[in-house]
């Protein structure tokens, strides 16, 4: 979607186990949800 909008040089960082040990962990595990850092540039 970022590239559809017009962004370039899109980068994605390593996953973070954001919900590990929290109340939302079960849903997060069910759908393999992690947090990520993203970076993109407007040309």
């Amino acid at each position, binding site marked *: 979607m970022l590239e559809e909008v017009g962004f370039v040089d899109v980068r994605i960082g390593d996953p*973070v186990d954001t919900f590990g040990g929290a109340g939302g962990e079960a849903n997060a595990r069910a759908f393999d*949800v992690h*947090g990520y*850092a*993203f*970076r993109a540039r407007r040309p």
Partner: protein
Amino acid sequence: MSTITDQDGRFTPVDPEALRAEVRAKYRDVAESPNASFHFHTGRDLARRCRYDMGPVDQLPECAVESFAGVANPFELRDIGSGERVVDVGSGAGFDSFLAAGAVGASGFVVGVDMTPEMLAKSTATAATLGIAHVEFRDGIAESLPVPDGWADVVISNGVFNLCADKRLAFDEVFRVLRPGGTLQFADIANGRPVPEEAMREIDLWTG
């Protein structure tokens, strides 16, 4: 089954205004009772989990950190530079805005945008307590940012776009406020397994 579309006629799985009301209620609680039990972690422990540089975090007062509810570190892939103009989309109680304010220094400026009144009150009070004049918090939503075209060198955000019913509209808005050559650096969640369409229509699952 009804179909919900946004102002440009694009399909959205839930009603955007109903979702905003749900999000406001959830984050009002995070602002007022940050140590309550949520489906996510909060505060300094979460910042450590998200791989923040804890040096600058440790310099912040508890009121700037306790309601932090991000999902990763938007500063991980690029440092914010001195003098840059930054927009923080969904600034909450101001955690990332205050870190950005420290990085840009007095020659830069940070605009935090949030739609939850209790978060705006908290971040504005913290800025006054800290005596930081180059950060300002404004009422607004990701899909309609109160920032002029091309104003920002950098847009940051943390755990916000996943709560927007129309992500395309939100990213279009980020593109508008960035200057040519400007950078979007944000943190958000992504799922490795597909979420069934029925689940996407359940508004409670968006915030819990």
